[in-house]
């Protein structure tokens, strides 16, 4: 089986990739191919020019920088994230999200960079990165730019990445994860090989006595055209005691933030119901993982 590709350029280095993109502004970047090749086959990108960055091994791997920032190379595969020691030590819920993508084979080829550059709301790692206030680092001919993830998504399938730029890393600052515990729940129709009907990522920081919510962050996939944070719900429970009323309030308040739509995959009403239910469950689980004391 062959793909209808007009021309394929294989970049040997990041700078070469950028110059190839400058030379061929119509070209698309292909990293792992699990999105791009499918679009080529489906006809949406048939006859396109591709710049492959698959060979840029410098963009793979996870490192802990001296200031505590976790740097995830954009070409790191979902499998490598899911089994990475740094990830599992500090942000295991990102590992959970990466481990919930498709099946083992797709997780071996799919990259976290691709998962954020495709601008898709159901992308499994995107909601957790949003809930972690991640920073996306991209490089173009004029050098690097850093974009907070809240500004990354412009609209469905469109992100703040110029056609001549390459996303190089995803950064999780220390203050984003230190003291936080979280979890990701992927709601889908199958237990594997599926896209999320709704994805919910929550992380929480409790007071020292584990009885009060000091900070909480919640982000959804499929609650809107792009991944989104439920900031009203977050604000409503900050400083509240860990009890049922807080959990109920939290789940009730997410309704002010989310805006899922009806599609043939699920109705708006059902998704809304699920999102409130998952808010409660994911927060409960995050608190449990924090060693929280339920009143």
């Amino acid at each position, binding site marked *: *089986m062959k*793909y209808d590709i007009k*021309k*394929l350029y294989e970049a040997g280095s990041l700078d070469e990739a950028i110059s190839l993109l400058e030379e061929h502004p119509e070209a698309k970047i292909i990293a792992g191919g699990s999105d791009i090749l499918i679009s080529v*086959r489906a006809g949406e990108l048939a006859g396109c020019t591709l710049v492959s960055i698959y060979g840029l091994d410098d963009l793979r791997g996870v490192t802990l920088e001296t200031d505590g920032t976790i740097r995830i190379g954009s070409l790191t595969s979902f499998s490598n994230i899911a089994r990475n020691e740094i990830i599992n030590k500090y942000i295991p819920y990102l590992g959970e999200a990466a481990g919930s993508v498709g*099946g*083992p*084979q797709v997780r071996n080829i799919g990259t976290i960079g691709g998962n954020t550059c495709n601008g898709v709301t159901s992308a499994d790692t995107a909601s957790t990165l949003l809930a972690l206030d991640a920073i996306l680092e991209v490089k173009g001919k004029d050098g690097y730019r850093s974009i907070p993830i809240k500004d990354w998504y412009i609209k469905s399938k469109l992100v703040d990445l110029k056609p001549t730029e390459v996303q190089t890393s995803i950064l999780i600052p220390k203050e984003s994860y230190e003291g936080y515990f979280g979890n990701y729940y992927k709601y889908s129709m199958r237990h*594997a*090989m599926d896209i999320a009907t709704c994805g919910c990522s929550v992380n929480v920081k409790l007071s020292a006595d584990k009885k009060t919510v000091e900070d909480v962050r919640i982000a959804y996939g499929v609650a809107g055209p792009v991944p989104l944070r439920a900031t009203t719900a977050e604000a409503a429970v900050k400083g509240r005691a860990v009890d049922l009323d807080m959990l109920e309030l939290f789940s009730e308040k997410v309704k002010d933030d989310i805006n899922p739509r009806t599609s043939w995959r699920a109705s708006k009403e059902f998704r809304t119901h699920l999102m409130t239910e998952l808010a409660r469950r994911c927060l409960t689980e995050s608190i449990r993982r924090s060693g929280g004391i339920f009143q």
Partner: protein
Amino acid sequence: MSDIQYKEITFTVNGKERSVMIDVRSSLLEVLRNKLHLHSVKKGCEVGECGACTVLIDGEPFDSCIYLAVWAEGKDILTVEGLMGADGSISDIQQAFIDEAAVQCGFCTPGLIMTSYSILADGKRYTRDELRQKLAGNMCRCTGYHNIINAVENIMLKRIEEAEVKDS
């Protein structure tokens, strides 16, 4: 149509170094099936959803349909054909698929065997649910997976037992 772009790639396939001139538009599936005639690699969906074309690349399972063949440069590729010994012997996993009646139409079988091969390579003990999760990228319509999981579990336990006997 523009002129076809060719490239020579050199990689190891089933233990043997190969250099092949390929059309860069080819998937690895295409090259393995049509250039190297490794017909165990099956085309089931062409979009990475069924796992019938699973091969191991540097020991890890990949869907060869959504893997550009040019990326295989320098890689070590293993297909079911590569599991047969020079004397015609087969791997314990293949034998377990036979013994447990884990084979029906056989179309998903080579892919499942390759995924199983990679799962069992580390000699670790997994629960049945963990095995299910690790096999979830390979679809099968005939067996309901029941006997496949039995086959993989049996070999896992057998190997662990053998390793323990060796250690003691």
